[in-house]
């Protein structure tokens, strides 16, 4: 085979640059472009305030809960798996944390530890089941979700629970610093920074992409693939637990079914952001874009008083539309 000699320098063309981008980068560009389009459309059709920093930051605050969950889900999806135990991990973590903290800031630390601990344990169980017992993640996390729901229902139903959140958590979820920046967004930003560094600059991140791409080859190259998988699930568990605490803080209390509305949007955000559902490729900033897109869409439709029915339909159509924009998966042939 001959190597191609480098082509003569052609004038820079936006279109060529765009088509030459790897799929994962292309999706990020499209996603952010769409955010701009949405903001513009929102300003024109919904309310002139749409583009104002106050409004946008408000939306970012709301989006941060989904964003934290999506960060964890992305890690799992990158390894070629999926985490369907989001809803009730979140829920159980919040319920146990508020119960232990009993509304007192002084009891905050034990409460937090218990909450995050739930996330860690769930992540470990999921990760070990998938990595060592080779149970398909879809099935295992589904079962875990059912189990956690049972545990939560049992716990909250059998005896009076303390559900009000300690002041600190409520502050964390709702407070706005200097009248502009919501603290929750800062939390999300910190987590995002961590994710970007780990996924794109660290050895663990490289191994994660390798495992998602071809687990056998990664394993035969000396990578401890079970650890990578378990790590991803533990991250997801912790993210879910953290999000649960914040969601409870936002509402002032923990309550059953608080996590139901987050599963599908989290997966959608990851996929809209350009991560392949099969694993092995995707950029974290894309996931962030996906979360913001979903949030802005929801906000806009809600302000326009669109019915829940129409909102669901639009949500589905948007996901499909974006996927078509990104270019499709490889056709399978030998």
């Amino acid at each position, binding site marked *: 085979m*001959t*190597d191609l000699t480098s082509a003569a320098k052609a004038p820079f063309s936006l279109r060529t640059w765009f088509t030459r981008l790897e799929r994962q980068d292309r999706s990020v560009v499209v996603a952010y472009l769409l955010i701009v389009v949405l903001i513009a459309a929102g300003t024109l059709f919904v309310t002139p305030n749409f583009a104002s920093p106050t409004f946008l930051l408000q939306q970012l605050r709301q989006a941060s809960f989904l964003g934290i969950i999506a960060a964890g889900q992305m890690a799992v999806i990158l390894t070629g798996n999926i985490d369907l135990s989001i809803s009730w991990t979140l829920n159980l973590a919040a319920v146990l944390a508020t119960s232990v903290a009993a509304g007192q800031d002084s009891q905050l630390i034990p409460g937090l530890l218990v909450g995050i601990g739930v996330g860690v344990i769930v992540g470990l169980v999921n990760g070990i089941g998938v990595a060592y017992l080779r149970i398909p993640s879809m099935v295992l996390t589904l079962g875990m979700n059912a189990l956690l729901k049972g545990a939560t229902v049992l716990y909250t139903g059998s005896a009076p629970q303390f559900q009000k959140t300690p002041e600190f958590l409520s502050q964390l979820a709702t407070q706005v610093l200097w009248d502009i920046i919501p603290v929750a967004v800062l939390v999300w930003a910190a987590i995002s920074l961590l994710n970007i560094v780990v996924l794109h600059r660290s050895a663990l991140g*490289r*191994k994660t992409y390798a495992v998602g*791409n*071809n687990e056998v080859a990664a394993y035969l190259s000396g990578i401890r693939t079970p650890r990578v998988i378990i790590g991803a699930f533990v991250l997801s568990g912790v993210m879910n637990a953290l999000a649960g605490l914040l969601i409870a803080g936002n509402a002032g209390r923990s309550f059953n079914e608080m996590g139901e509305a987050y599963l599908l949007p989290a997966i959608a955000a990851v996929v809209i952001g350009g991560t392949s559902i099969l694993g092995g490729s995707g950029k974290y900033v894309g996931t962030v874009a996906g979360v913001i897109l979903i949030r802005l869409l929801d906000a806009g439709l809600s302000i326009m008083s669109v019915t829940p029915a129409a909102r669901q339909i639009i949500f589905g159509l948007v996901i499909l539309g974006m996927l078509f924009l990104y270019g499709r998966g490889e056709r399978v042939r030998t």
Partner: protein
Amino acid sequence: MATSTQTVPPTERREAGRPPLVEALKVTKHFGGTVALTEASFACHQGSIHALVGENGAGKSTLVKVLAGVIVPDSGQIIINGQPSPIHSPADASRLGIVPVFQELSLMATLTVAENIFIASPPRNALGLVNRRALRQRTEQLFADLGFHHVDPDALISELPLAQRQLVEIAKALSHQPQLLIMDEGTSALSIHDVELVFKVMRRMRDEGRSVIFISHRMAEVKEIADTLTVFRDGRHVGSFPMGDVREDEMVQLMIGRKLEQAFPPKPAPQQRAPLLEVKNLTWEPTLHDISFTVGKGEIVGLGGLDGQGQGELLFGLFGLLRQMRGEIRIEGQPQRISSPAAAARAGINLALIPEDRKTEGLILGMSVSDNATLATIDRVTRFGLIDRKRERAAVERVIEQMRVRTPSRQTRTGNLSGGNQQKVVIGKWLLTEARLYLLHDPSRGIDVGTKQEIYLLMRSLADQGAGIIFFSTELQELVGMCDRVLVLYEGRIFRELIGPEITQENIVTAALGLNANGESQKTKT
């Protein structure tokens, strides 16, 4: 520009004036950054068994895939019996009578043999439902016709060994009564007996005026069956000759485009060596029994024997892939319990495995040359867990340079490289680990002659630097040419150890068949 020297083979002289059965004209095909075919031309006449030879990356597989409709060329024409016939899909090719058999089987593992063969148009009853009885009968008839008596039509493909799967694949192709059968390394796992059956069928086809394109690295088979030979190099047609008109070394020269150097690097004289690896009583039911041997520093130890005698499993076992394996392993005197490849590759043990299938086991095709090269040593180019890009780049460039990997850039997807270059990346990945014991599973399979030689030189140089190498090869020539010692496995045991001048093709084959030095059969089962 290479010119095509067409000499008309004997059978074809009779029908001068008749257009070739299949002709490819000026076919060009790019894959991402690499060019597989450059204005390649090829012609195969009726009633011919036409061998197509060339290094890997020469374009033979690409050309036949174009003919078979699996790949659509960037430019060029396909002409069937004088008529231009565009082929855009396997269905098109099939309609024109072209049927391929590739080394990658096109079988569905969870379906039965009969279902696989007639999947495209199974016999149906009046209700439009599949008639299972007719399906079975048709399969039995086909097998009877071909002489493949030992394959069970109702067996699931997943229940069959590789050799039988290849036979099913061949039968499936033949069931279409092709005008042109393409065999791309389709006999690699067959026994001698089965190869003869297939050859018989191919000769019958030829006598009926139909043709076969036969791609194989095995010169013995090629010489036995083909009447015409075409050589490809670097994506172009280099020459076509009647079989026997060209000598082997001339042909090899055409294939690699340069004078053939001595095939194997010189071997050092047999000598005492410090033991690097000591294996005692290694057992893994039911495949490996009581295996004991040593590998010294600087030694290349070959594994020989018939297929499936445990050679691959032995390599796996040493690399930590087998559970419930008993026995003792010592590396440099230290007993080791290796329970995973990660453990095997760890400092102190430093094993490396070049696996059998580079595309699915050795490389991550979707990732770049750079990412693949550092896959086993990524932890060594980090600082506080973060990748040090400078050190990573230096390591990758070292690999590309040392192994002479031909790639457009470090970021090229390894999936776009030729087979030889892919294997170089795999080996280079392990070189970075500074391993001291290399386990090689048929490293030169499906690799062009030039790269093979580079691999041989590398192996000897590693050995000279003190590494130990266990070299499992399915080519006798390689075992004879490269190894200081050869262990011939028979029924999961080391049947015979050959040292130095004892290593001859004859001795290896004899031992492989379970015959002792006197040629007598020996009962090894206790």
